[in-house]
Each structure stands twice: as structure tokens, then as C-alpha cells.
């Protein structure tokens, strides 16, 4: 059920994400690797919160490669592609593993205004698409590695920075394509005699605030994501890809740029699910290492943020 987090909002396996206000300078390339560990023992079956001793603790691990490139100072493109592995500590159900979805993103700084007090307001538009890279199984929640839906989303983001403190807010709409499952009939709130599942679209908003300097970014994050439609898991039933899936999460993240090794960045973060519906009450930890280089000059840029 935690798969939600990979599907309506793919893992941010990237030093720069589609939810932050960071952009690379023209010709700068950033590539790296990311690890995500997501686990829960309690989940919401509709609105009923429970554990399941036939699942125990459900863990999803993700090993991703990701990167970003500055086409211009204002326009960046990004990608990510993870390998995902799931496991339950109790019961007989086998975990699954495999290569999940390729995500491609484009972030555009549409407007920027600098104020006389030195503060700065920026507005970004972000487009994101994702496509499954393999024919993995979607209909095996909570142990499938993803939803196998193609997604396209559009996000608006506003960032305001005063001195070294910032606040960002963004909201996105995500279109999710229907998915094909291995069965020829299934029940949602009625029976369907087809292998195609109508997936509800999704939406989310995200607020970040914290400290942003040349070498360190540290931020607190609040995020709320929800499907636009979908149905509840019935009591003691199995979850299904087109369930309603909502999650309200809080957490924090940091990015540290090494001073000694120019171009090397370390990222990390943690998120906790406060409240949800048809999802696990997950704790998600992530860590990653990224490397920056200027393809034109061959120099290693000091860090991934543009200088003001």
C-alpha cells in the first residue's frame, strides 16, 4: 500500500527534485545514486487502522540512479530510475523485486523577482512523466513494486528566500493511465469483466521551509497527497491498484555539499506518515550521493544551487 508513495509521487531519488526550488546552471550535470527504505506495520484499511500479523512489517527498498542537467540557467531536466525490492516479515506472501519506472522531469523558472531587502521570490513550473521500464506485476499490493501506470504531472512552485531562510510551496496534478492486470475480472465496488483497471488521478501539495546556504540546505517538509477518486479496501480484503490512497506526511531533508571534494553532494531525509487512507503508516528514510560537473568547462561546480 505504501506503493502509493512511489506512484502518485515518485521517490525523490535526486539531489534536485521536482518539488524544490533548486536549479542547475547551464551545462552542469549532476548524477548520483540514492537509497530509500520505506517500512510500516500498521496501515489504514479504508479509515480503519490496523496491523496484519500475516504481513508483519512491510519494507520496500529502492536503489535508484538519478541525474539532472542544466539546459539553460532557467531550464533543467532530470531523470530517475529505481530498482525496487519488497518484503514482508510475517505470513507466507513472497516479496517481489525488479526495475520500476523511469521518471523524466523538466523544471522551468518562469519568473523571479528580487526585492530591495535582498529577498527573492521565484516561480517555477515543473512537468513530470513516468513510464514503467519493465512488465512488473501491479496487482499484488502491498508487495508489488509499483502500480505500472504511466503518469504525467504538472506542478507549480513558489519559493521565497530571505537571507539564508526560505519557504517553498508547490501543488501538482498527476494524471495516471489505466493499468492492465493479470486477471480478467475483478471487483471494486462492482464487478468488472476486463483486465483493464481505471486508475484515479492524483494530486498533492507540499510545503518546505528551512535554511539554504552555499554548502547546506536543511528543511522541514509537510506533504499531503491524495487520489482523486478510488475506493476503500473492504474489511479484511486485499488492497487494489485503484484504491483511494491518501497520505499526509511530515519530515525533513538535508543536502550537504562537500568543501574538500568539489562537486560532491550528500543528501538525506526522513518522512513519517501522520494520517492516511488505504496506505501504510510508513516511515521513509533516504540517503544519496551526487556528483556535479560542468560539461562545457570541465570544471566541477561548487554546488547545485545557482548563485544569486
Amino acid at each position, binding site marked *: 500500500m505504501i506503493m502509493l508513495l512511489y506512484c502518485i509521487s515518485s521517490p525523490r531519488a535526486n539531489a534536485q527534485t521536482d518539488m524544490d526550488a533548486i536549479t542547475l546552471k547551464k551545462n552542469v550535470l549532476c548524477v548520483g545514486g540514492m537509497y530509500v527504505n520505506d517500512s510500516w506495520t500498521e496501515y489504514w484499511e479504508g479509515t480503519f487502522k490496523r496491523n496484519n500479523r500475516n504481513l508483519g512489517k512491510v519494507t520496500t527498498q529502492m536503489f535508484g540512479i538519478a541525474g539532472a542537467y542544466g539546459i539553460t540557467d532557467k*531550464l533543467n531536466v532530470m531523470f530517475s530510475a529505481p530498482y525496487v525490492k519488497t518484503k514482508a516479515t510475517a505470513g*507466507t506472501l513472497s516479496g517481489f523485486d525488479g526495475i520500476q519506472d523511469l521518471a523524466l522531469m523538466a523544471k522551468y523558472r518562469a519568473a523571479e523577482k528580487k526585492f530591495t531587502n535582498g529577498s527573492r521570490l521565484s516561480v517555477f513550473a515543473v512537468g513530470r512523466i513516468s513510464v514503467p521500464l519493465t512488465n512488473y506485476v501491479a496487482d499484488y499490493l502491498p508487495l508489488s513494486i509499483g502500480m505500472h501506470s504511466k503518469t*504525467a504531472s*504538472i506542478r507549480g512552485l513558489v519559493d521565497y528566500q530571505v537571507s539564508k531562510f526560505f519557504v517553498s510551496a508547490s501543488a501538482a496534478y498527476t494524471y495516471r493511465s*489505466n493499468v492492465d492486470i493479470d486477471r480478467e475480472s*475483478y471487483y471494486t465496488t462492482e*464487478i468488472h*469483466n476486463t483486465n483493464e483497471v481505471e486508475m484515479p488521478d492524483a494530486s498533492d501539495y507540499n510545503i518546505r521551509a528551512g535554511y539554504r546556504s552555499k554548502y547546506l540546505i536543511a528543511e522541514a517538509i509537510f506533504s499531503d497527497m491524495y487520489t482523486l477518486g478510488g475506493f476503500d479496501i473492504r474489511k479484511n480484503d*486485499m488492497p487494489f491498484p485503484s484504491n483511494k490512497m491518501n497520505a499526509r506526511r511530515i519530515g525533513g531533508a538535508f543536502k550537504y555539499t562537500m568543501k574538500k571534494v568539489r562537486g560532491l553532494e550528500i543528501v538525506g531525509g526522513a518522512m513519517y506518515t501522520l494520517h492516511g487512507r488505504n496506505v501504510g503508516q510508513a516511515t521513509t528514510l533516504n540517503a544519496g550521493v551526487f556528483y556535479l560537473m560542468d560539461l562545457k568547462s570541465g570544471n566541477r561546480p561548487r554546488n547545485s544551487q545557482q548563485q544569486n
Partner: protein
Amino acid sequence: MKKNTTFKTAILLVLAGLVFWSCNKSDIGDRSLAYKPLEPENQDLNAGTWKPVLLASADEFEVAAPAATNTPGYTAELNEIKGFQGSLSDKDKSSIKYWSAGAVLRWNEILRELVALRNIPPYQKEDDTYPAPSPTNPFAYPTFPFANPPYAGRAYAYVSAATYDALVAAWHYKQLYNRAAPYNVDSSVQALVPKSSLPSYPSEDAVVAGATIELLKLLFPADLAYVQEKADEHMRARIMSGANTRSDIEAGLALGKMVAAKFVARGRTDRAGQAGGNPEIWKALEDNTMAKGEVCWFSLETPRRPPMLPLFNKVKPFLFDSLTVINMRPPPPPSTSSEQFKKETEEVLYYSSHPTRERVKIVHFWADGAGTYTPAGHWDHIAASEFVKENYSEVRWARNMALLNMALCDAGIVCWDAKYFYFNPRPSQSNPDIKTLTGLPNFPAYTSGHSTFSAAAATVLTHLLPDRGTKFDDMATEAALSRLYGAIHYRSDSEAGLVSGKAVGEYAVQRALTDGAN
């Protein structure tokens, strides 16, 4: 500046794309909505002479003679139809189209839906025991019934067999009274469904609806409001279409209900109500198996769930008697201490730890686990998608569904007999390293239910549709292997299940050869 415009245009295109795709998502290609109106090539006018399942004869229940078509009462009925036809809404038209695909087909689909709705194992109580659904209080959690595979197989059989008997009776009276359909009596009544020369009194659609409603009072008592709503819509659609008058419908509903009452009486005393057993019986199963020196089955669920319907073997079968169930019992599975058992467990471990995408697809295609219409429903689905190509009369649809579902019900009985006679452990109990690729059913391994159900169904369908060659047998073999691939059954379970399922299916074939419908 130019770049800026390009980007904005791109965003606009993406947004337009999103709107376009979103609007097209609701068409998911549901096969059942694409079925064409039923237009039988042969109305089987002699079906009043076919052999019923429970009825002593086709005229066991009386249907009064209808009013003649030249009476004022009948004219009033025609006026009702004309009134409807003068102001049909789009919803009315789509309702007429939906029901025109056939009454037996649509009510079978509704039954499959109810099974999927009710096929969820109860959640445990605070004290870690499991509550049992109660037919006397069907709405209280856990709602009644838990429509698990044996329960579902029996439900499909009762509804199908009662529908068949009721239609045999209906065909008898159609011939006897020979009242033409309204669109054939009065040329100003439009035929909004394919025209037929079959007499319309009593209405075959109403017979099917009436028989089904009556049985669902017993089988799905928590869903009667939903079912009645469907029946009302169905009957209205038939009148609006010009195919039936209200008296055709009323006579049909009454006949269907009378015939079904006979099946309800049988269902109340067929021992299914006691099939759950009790703690002493569950304990005795373990003791008996251990006394034989075999490792006994236990539930791998936490908390441990009582075994599913351990006395289902005592339920009265449709195609043979209870003694035959015992005579059909397969030879014992490999002893839990044998080399063969060890080898088969290792084979399961192999499939557990080496899943391929192709095998997982097979596992999930046939899984039919919790929240689905069960293996019996899957075979009804398979049969229905073939029968729609055959343009059967309603009575032949019912007869073929009855043969199929009586075989499926009895396959469940025979299989449950083997399961609880041998009471042997699942592979994951024998070796906890064996992880399963689908949910592990909460009952013993030998023989495989899917294999038994599938071979029984395939045998019946191959007899009914010989031009399909080995299609159904191949499907049954795949269904049987899916349980090994899913790491929830040993090879022996599937092989033995296929053999006994085929034996059950042969009984239905024997019936088919002698019921007068050939």
C-alpha cells in the same frame, strides 16, 4: 523570448493531453457491456420435454391460462407498452439493450458479482478467535455469507439448476398456451429487441428473475434489496421492449418462484449449514491424521483460523449420491515422511524462489482468491464468454449452465472430501522457506480445489462445445499448474485434482447425453 513561448506551448499541450486522456479512462473495455442482443437460432420448442433436475414433471406447478389477445384486459396491457415506448429515455434504451443479451447470462453475472462481494474471510475478534457469519443475522459483521469457493460452487449450482427447471416448465406452458409476443400481436408495438416467434406467456426472463430471487433469499440474504432493484429494472426493460406484457411477467415470476421453492427446501436440508464443523471436529481431524503417522495440516494464518468448511464433503451432491463421493476419493497423497514428499516439496521451493513473469501471470490469472468470484465463477465467466457466441435459446443457456455448475458444486464436495480425509499440510508448512506468490488458502493441500473445479468444468464444456478442441482441457491444466507455480500446492495435489475433477465432469456429461436436449 522564443524559448519561453515554446515551453508555454508545451505545457499547454501536456494539459490538453491530460484532459483528453482523463476523459477516455472510464472505457475499460468491459466485455459484458459489449454483448449483443440474444437472437437464438433455435428456440428449442420441445424443451418442455427435457429432463428437469428436481421437478417431477414440467407441469408439476400449475400456470393459469392467459387472457386471450382480443380481450380488453390484454388491450390494456398493450397500452402500457405503448405508453412506455412513447417516451423512452436514454437510460431506458440502455437498460433494454443490457438485458437483451439474455436473462440467464445477466443473472449469472449478478450472482458472480455477489460472490465477489461476499468472498472475504472474516477479521478476527479481540480475543483472536474468528466470528462466523450468521444466516439469521446476515447484516451483522461478518456479513452472511462468506462466499468461499465451496459455498460459491453450491450457490451457482442451485441458481442454475432451479433456473433450468423453471425454464423447462415455462417452455411447457409456452407451447400449451401459445400466446404470441406483444410485438407479434399488435403491429403498432415496436420490437426493441430481436423478434422471436417463441410464445411469450409466461415470460422466460421473468422465470429466470423469479427463480433467482427466491434462491438468493437463502444464499445471499443481505443483498435482496440490490437484487430486487435489478429484477424490477429487468422486468420493466422487457415490457418496454415490446417482448412481454405485464401478465407474461407476472406469470413468469410466479412460476420461477414456485420452482425455486423446491430448490430452497433442498438447500435448507443439504447439510451445507453444518459444514463449518466445531472445535471438537477440528481437533479430531488432527488426531486422526497423527494416528496414521502423518504430519497434519494446520492453519498458517495468525491468529490460526479454523479450517474452511471441513464437513462440506457431507453436502448432498447434484449428480450422484454421498456414497459415490466416498467411492471417488483419490488414493492417498505421498506420505509426509516419504522421499517423494520431500522431492515434491523441493519442487515447490524451486517455483517459489524462481518466479518468472510468465508463471506469475498464470498464477494471478487463475488465483481467484479472496474478493473474487472464485474458481467456479471464473469457469462460469469462461463458459458465458463462449455461450454468447452460440446464440442459444434461454432454456439451452440455462441447461448448459446447470450442467456446468452442478459439476462445479459436486467437484467442491469431492475435493473437500479428499482434503479433510487426508488433512495434509501445505508446502509452506513443510518448509517455511517456501513463500507463496498468491494468498495461501486456509485448508489442507491434497487435492487441489482449483484443479478439481477446473477439470470438472473443462470436461463439461468440452462436451458442450466439441469444436473448441482441447481449449478447455488446456486451460484446466494451466489452472492446475498455477497452484504449483504459486507455491501453494504440490504437484500431486494438482494431478490428483485433475483426475477427480474429470470424473465428476463425466457425471454431468452422462446427464447431458440423456436429458433430451441433444
